[in-house]
């Protein structure tokens, strides 16, 4: 979708507000002034005063010479950011993404919004009419880029709606100040006789950069749409938090459950509306005696299923000590992620690890026994048996390498190889007998050796020669000899696993 931006310029923001506050100021020229170095300097002037030649920065005494009846009001510090904040929140009705453009403007990201008001013309006119009816002098313009919209709203004469991809043609006849340049750059351009954007837009970029700096090029590119400009919407981000105060202190588990259920329902309703899912939540109970009781849960996958979340909390409700009673419950979603909407019912859940039932089960298990007791393994690129698998960090993680099944591997692998006593006839032959945990096994059949070297970049040590042996009862074992066979008998035999 092509981006469309609207910029609004409140030309007399502060004086308009004073006029609204004091109707007596209506129809007379007045200015706002603040003391600078012992003189009163005008910081804002209303339309009437400006029409009579009073500009911002003039000393009040000089202004009084022009208009003897000039009303002078003390400026209020921090008024304009406050007003803009209020106006921007009011303007959220036109687009969800409104940002403040200090000192006297607003920027809307109205991509895909205009058609709801019956087209861009109606949309822009609607904004202007509504703001004017509030009592503000406004100028608004709409364009593909913030830069162009800004330029048109401040300096444009006609055609405040700039068509798609027509930034350049709109900008040509505007003065350089329309590009939001720094004051000294504007002065420099003025001195060089570059009074309109068309005078320099065609110049080589390297020359422009050398003379006016990188920020000049950046502003030009942003206006023309060659460079992205990011705005910071004012939309207040509400924390995902629900509160439930109680008339009477709650002391029973049933009471806590009811409170939790109610909070979960409202929170999950909101999450569902916003297509969000909860990953971690904290349930805090404020006790009458000033203490806090907290329980928290985590989920494997973002979810807004209140029933499932309740089950996760239910396991831990028993740990809450209500003492004299709980007067306030707060449920807070600490970690929230976007959820992809799930197809309901038609194909009865995804199979495999994507199944929501499975992730909910794992959440419950992790809640009670701890997530570190739950493992899933993926193959790793190592031959050393202990390193040939690694723990998957999350449910979606896939093996990057194939599982190897070309060599026999025991179904049960001892985490620490157990030393055994062995009688081997010839070097590099499988043993004839071995003793494990006091029991003597006579080897009937054997396979091997399979030599596995430790990876020298990970670990120092001797190689292992693995033998797969079967005793007279049919039990199959995985034995290995650590190191070379030598006369000094420095090698050692170990049992490392049981085959099925």
């Amino acid at each position: 979708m092509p981006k469309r931006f609207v910029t609004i310029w409140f030309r007399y923001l502060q004086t308009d507000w004073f006029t609204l506050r004091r109707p007596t100021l209506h129809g007379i020229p007045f200015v706002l002034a603040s003391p600078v170095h012992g003189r009163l300097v005008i910081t804002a002037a209303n339309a009437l005063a400006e029409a009579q030649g009073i500009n911002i920065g003039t000393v009040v005494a000089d202004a009084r010479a022009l208009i003897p009846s000039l009303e002078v009001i003390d400026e209020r510090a921090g008024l304009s950011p406050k007003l803009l904040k209020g106006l921007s929140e009011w303007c959220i009705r036109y687009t969800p993404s409104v940002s403040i453009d200090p000192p006297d403007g607003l920027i809307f990201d109205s991509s895909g919004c205009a058609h709801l008001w019956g087209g861009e013309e109606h949309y822009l006119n609607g904004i202007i009419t509504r703001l004017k009816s509030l009592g503000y002098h406004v100028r608004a313009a709409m364009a593909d880029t913030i830069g162009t919209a800004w330029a048109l709203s401040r300096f444009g004469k006609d055609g405040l709606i700039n068509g798609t991809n027509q930034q350049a043609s709109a900008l040509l006849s505007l003065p350089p100040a329309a590009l939001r340049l720094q004051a000294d750059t504007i002065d420099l351009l003025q001195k060089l006789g570059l009074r309109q954007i068309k005078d320099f837009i065609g110049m080589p970029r390297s020359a422009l950069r050398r003379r006016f700096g990188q920020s000049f090029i950046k502003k030009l590119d942003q206006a023309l749409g060659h460079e992205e400009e990011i705005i910071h919407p004012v939309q207040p981000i509400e924390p995902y938090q629900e509160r439930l105060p109680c008339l009477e202190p709650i002391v029973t588990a049933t009471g806590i459950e009811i409170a939790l259920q109610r909070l979960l329902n409202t929170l999950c309703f909101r999450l569902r509306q916003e297509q969000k899912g909860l990953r971690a939540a904290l349930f805090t109970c404020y006790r009458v005696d000033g203490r806090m009781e907290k329980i928290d849960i985590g989920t494997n996958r973002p979810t807004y299923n209140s029933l499932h979340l309740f089950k996760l909390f239910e396991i831990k409700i028993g740990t809450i000590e209500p003492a004299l009673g709980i007067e306030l419950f707060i449920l807070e979603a600490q970690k929230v992620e976007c959820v992809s909407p799930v197809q309901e019912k038609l194909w009865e859940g995804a199979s495999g690890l994507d199944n929501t039932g499975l992730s909910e089960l794992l959440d419950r298990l992790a809640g009670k026994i701890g997530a570190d007791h739950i493992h899933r393994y993926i193959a790793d690129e190592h031959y050393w048996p202990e390193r040939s698998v690694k723990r998957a960090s999350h449910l979606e993680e896939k093996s990057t390498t194939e599982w190897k099944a070309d060599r026999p591997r025991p179904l049960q692998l001892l985490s620490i190889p157990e030393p055994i006593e062995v009688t081997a006839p010839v070097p590099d032959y499988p043993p004839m007998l071995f003793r494990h945990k006091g029991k003597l096994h006579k080897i009937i059949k054997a396979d091997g050796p399979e030599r596995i070297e430790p990876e020298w970049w990970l670990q120092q040590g001797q190689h292992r020669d693995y033998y797969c042996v079967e005793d007279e009862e049919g039990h199959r074992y995985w034995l290995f000899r650590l190191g070379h066979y030598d006369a000094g008998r420095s090698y050692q035999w170990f049992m490392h696993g049981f085959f099925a």
Partner: protein
Amino acid sequence: MSATKADIIAQLQKELLPLQGYKPSVGGASLDPGLGAINNAFPNNTFPLGAVHEFCCARAEDVAVTGGFISGILASLMRSGRASLWISRSKTIFPPALKAFGIEPDKIIFINLQKERDILWAMEEALECDGLAAVVGEMQDIGFTASRRLQLAVEQSRVTGFIIRPNPRQVITTACVSRWKITSIPSIMEAGMPGVGFPRWNVELLKVRNGKPGTWQIEWIAGKFRHVIKVASIEQEQQKKTG
């Protein structure tokens, strides 16, 4: 007259089976673990899915052997793409070995718990989750009440449960549908060939609800079960004909 009476009895028995936990499987023949003649020991001649099976292991080596036999069955259950849970005391199962039984090892979630009570709780929770293919649990002892809880859970969710009981202290009646004992027997190589042969097991079906217990010898070859000694199964068939 007697023929009709036999028909009625057969009919009634058929109606009783679903009430006793033998529901016809949803997946049909595609989920059949390929146990061949062993299937004849069960009612409806099918391996009961959506039920709990109990495996007794007298020795440490038998746990691995039982694990192998279960893995063979799991492979066909997981063909539907669903995941499985393996709940045990310690991290002993080596995932790459499962590949040899036709299982994708990353589709199995391992849970290690120390207390029997926790294992039982986790197993019950897991069996209630219908998104799973099967749940394998390792616990030394299980009482009748506990086993009945598991049975009730699987009747709802149709998940198959396997309980491995290493070195059980006492073997009492449980609500499990069957009780097995798997031991290894020496593999056979062609005369004069060196090396170790295919895994070969002695499968004892000690108890089966509404079925006929028996003993078979099977081998795991190329991703399939294969009966080695036909004599045992022929005996079974004769028994079935006569009795």
